[in-house]
């Protein structure tokens, strides 16, 4: 099919290293001795464990319950016994441990009762809920819960559904093999997404270095009578980035500040479509995935691997060479070295690369930036990486945000081309995490300040109310006294019957005084209230500011409001409860 393709700026062409691992068909990895299943395997809330040590679980049984809407359930990858629910090392660059369910397989691999349904008989929200309960998440690497992306924008019509089979990272071939061998189920999965989102067209993007996958997908689309367009896109890293693929296929550019649905487009990975189909049509939650094992190994190939399999055990199947000195999870452009070989395969694990100095030579020493601009030319988001580098280095985080650091997708193109060998992406990750940390600290401080101010305001108000009450009582007292005095005087005049005007003045004066007294008390009370209010407003250093400063402050204020609307609102009430 001929179609007008668009280009994105930048991009690089690293050696693809894909042919090594496509020679053999997908193999089933054997049951490992132990499975370590992290509960937090997707973006969003951490699922709550619903099993304990000693429980017997079946394959596909729920072990972690989704926490909130943006969260996905986690299931037992095989039948066996739960050994522990404990903290374990994670395949994550942070190196931090996280809560995992450790399962000892019983070898039977016994499934739960699988319910097969025709999804067309379900309401859309039921389909979304089933996907969430089946732990379907984006398998391209971002692991965003899929059901959360299956609602079209209410205001913008859904134009295109983009299916990502580009697989642009070197070494990785799991999507390629999936499309070659299981195209039929991928296309059926895409059908579910299409029915939920109702786009005008469906575009399946595959890099032109995978003609077999494209042919298989075309055949499957034709066999199922769908009208999806299978489009071969030029091989250029990072064409498989969601935003780049959307740009190439539709011409639309999704900025960091927007959702793609705001522009009438949504994007899913082919493997996500496959697991969605298995979950809906076969009742199989996501308990395994395809993983490419490549790099410094004798027999690179793709395996169907249970989630939770220790990476070392998987790597052994491909016979790593003796000089292997580490495991990279993901591709060589965006992947990372895992802390040890015991960390488990997770839903985000698309590839393991045996690391050695032979295939990844050590980097030359870092030199100063010569502002050659190669990074800016390579950046697919058209940022100025060298400027971001200066500001990140100088910890001038305000400036990094001005130069749009959060539009950086950390694809690594800038580091790839830098003649000074500067690990640019590392600097940007550092800057981002610093900004997040400061934002968190600031929100915490703001919440504390709001609580404190609220308490002070309330104290002052109570004081003022008390003063007012006292003043009113005093006024009432005075009025009463005056009335009594007046009554006495009246009695006297009645008795004296004096014709003179002098003494008559006295009784009229007393009630007049009482009225004045009451008025004064009210005014005093009002003044006390006003004073309390004035004092409640803390003294600020923001009274004498220039227009620019005021503008900058307003901007920061508005950003804070956008960033933390939820954390600021309850500050007052929670403060009240705490007392």
């Amino acid at each position: 099919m001929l179609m007008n393709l668009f280009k994105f700026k930048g991009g690089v062409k690293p050696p693809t290293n894909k042919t090594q691992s496509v020679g053999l068909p997908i193999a089933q990895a054997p049951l490992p001795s132990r499975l370590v299943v992290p509960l937090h395997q997707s973006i969003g809330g951490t699922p709550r464990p619903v099993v304990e040590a000693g429980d017997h679980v079946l394959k596909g049984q729920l072990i972690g319950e989704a926490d909130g809407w943006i969260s996905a359930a986690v299931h037992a990858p095989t039948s066996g016994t739960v050994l522990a629910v404990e903290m374990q090392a994670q395949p994550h660059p942070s190196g931090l441990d996280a809560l995992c369910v450790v399962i000892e397989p019983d070898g039977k691999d016994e499934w739960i009762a699988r319910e097969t349904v025709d999804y067309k008989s379900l309401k859309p929200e039921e389909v979304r809920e089933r996907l969430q309960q089946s732990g379907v998440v984006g398998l391209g690497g971002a692991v965003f819960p899929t059901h959360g992306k299956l609602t079209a924008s209410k205001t913008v019509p859904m134009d295109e559904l983009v299916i990502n089979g580009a697989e642009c990272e070197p070494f990785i071939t799991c999507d390629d093999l999936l499309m070659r061998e299981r195209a039929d189920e991928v296309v059926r999965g895409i059908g579910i997404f299409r029915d939920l989102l109702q786009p005008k067209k469906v575009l399946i993007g595959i890099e032109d270095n995978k003609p077999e996958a494209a042919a298989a997908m075309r055949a499957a689309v034709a066999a199922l009578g769908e009208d999806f367009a299978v489009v071969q896109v030029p091989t250029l890293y990072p064409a498989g980035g969601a935003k780049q693929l959307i740009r190439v296929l539709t011409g639309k550019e999704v900025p960091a500040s927007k959702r793609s649905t705001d522009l009438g487009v949504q994007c899913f990975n082919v493997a996500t479509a496959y697991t969605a189909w298995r979950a809906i049509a076969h009742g199989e939650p996501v308990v395994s995935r395809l993983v490419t094992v490549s790099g410094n190994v004798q027999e690179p190939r793709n395996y169907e691997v249970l989630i939770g399999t220790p990476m070392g055990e998987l790597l052994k199947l491909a016979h790593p060479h003796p000089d292997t000195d580490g495991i990279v999870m993901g591709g060589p452009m965006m992947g990372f070295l895992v802390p040890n070989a015991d960390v488990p395969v997770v839903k985000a694990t698309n590839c393991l690369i045996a690391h050695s100095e032979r295939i990844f030579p050590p980097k030359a020493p870092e030199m100063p930036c010569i502002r050659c601009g190669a990074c800016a030319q390579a950046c697919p988001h058209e940022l100025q990486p060298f400027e971001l580098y200066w500001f990140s280095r100088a910890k001038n985080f305000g400036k990094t945000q001005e130069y749009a650091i959060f539009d950086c997708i950390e694809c690594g193109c800038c580091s790839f081309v830098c003649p000074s060998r500067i690990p640019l992406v590392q600097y940007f990750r550092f800057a981002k995490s610093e900004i997040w940390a400061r934002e968190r600290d600031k929100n915490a401080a703001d919440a504390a300040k709001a609580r404190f101010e609220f308490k002070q305001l309330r104290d002052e108000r109570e004081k003022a109310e008390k003063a007012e009450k006292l003043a009113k009582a005093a006024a009432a007292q005075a009025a009463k006294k005056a009335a009594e005095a007046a009554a006495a005087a009246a009695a006297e005049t009645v008795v004296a019957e004096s014709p003179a005007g002098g003494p008559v003045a006295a009784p009229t004066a007393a009630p007049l005084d009482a009225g004045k007294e009451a008025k004064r008390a009210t005014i005093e009370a009002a003044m006390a209230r006003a004073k309390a209010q004035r004092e409640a407003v803390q003294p600020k250093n923001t009274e004498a500011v220039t227009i620019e400063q005021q503008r900058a402050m307003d901007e920061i204020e508005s950003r804070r409001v956008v960033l933390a609307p939820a954390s600021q609102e309850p500050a007052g009430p929670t403060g009240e409860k705490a007392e």
Partner: protein
Amino acid sequence: MFAPAPYLLKDVSVSQVMTQVCIALVPGIAAYAWLVGPAILAQLVIASLAALLAEAAMLRVQRKPLALFLSDGSAIVTAWLIALTFPPLAPWWLVVTGTVFAIVIAKHLYGGLGQNPFNPAMVAFAVCIVAFPALMSQWPVVGLQQSLLEQINVILGLSPRLDALSSATPLDAMKTSLKLGEGSVDVAQLLANQDIFGNFAGRGWEWVAAGYLLGGLWLWQRKLISWHVPVAFIGALALISGVLWLYNPAQFANPLFHLFSGGAMIGAFFIATDPVSGCTTPRGKLIFGAGAGLLAYIIRVFGGYPDGVAFAVLLMNLCAPVIDLLTQPPIFGMKDKA
């Protein structure tokens, strides 16, 4: 073990970049040595040695790794640009002074590689032409029959600096004659003097400039420089010289003469394209190049110096940060807002 992605890297380095810049200068150098005289080869050696020594000393003082930074090639590029812009028979100490000033003050005192706000070679030129105006204006007669050894003796001060050796550059000759003639001399008459002028610019020098053009195009083809700066520089220089030439062809030389005279070509492709001291955004590069071309013309035609490229580039270096600030390109997804 901690090593961040990407694990695959393109085979590039600073020394590769600098080496390719040097290679691109070779056609110009060859024409220079062949047509103007072999003395330039001696000057290149003198300047390179001085640059490496000054660089080594400054690295030592700052306790930076010697081998890593000496092999980056940046000092050699500076040295070659100095040698190529100074008069070829200038005494050795003049070239050394300029080079040491460039490396020590213009480069290292500002923070070393990648930090200098001004092009070091042009700083050297500006300092020397202000401090030693006479020596910096003595150019050999093109086609002088003198062996390399004889010329080296002149450079080293072992042979007397014969007056016959000194001449003016074609640009200077043109300007001075026009000024002295006060309207009675016209450009065509001057160009007829084939001792100084050649087919379309200075005798011999026009082919040196053509050599730089060739090398510059190669740099562009290798993607080491973008087209923006050279095109804007040459375009602006051609435009202003063209307008004035059309206005009065008797008193203003044609654009071709200006493009192939003095430092125009080496400036457009090798000096104004210096990324460290120049602009980095595409629009910024266009402004930078055009500004440098325009200023170069104004200084060389109306100013007091024989050529204006050095001062033009330095003046634009001054403006580069603010130009960059004002010409930031829109990013992915934000084009409609910019």
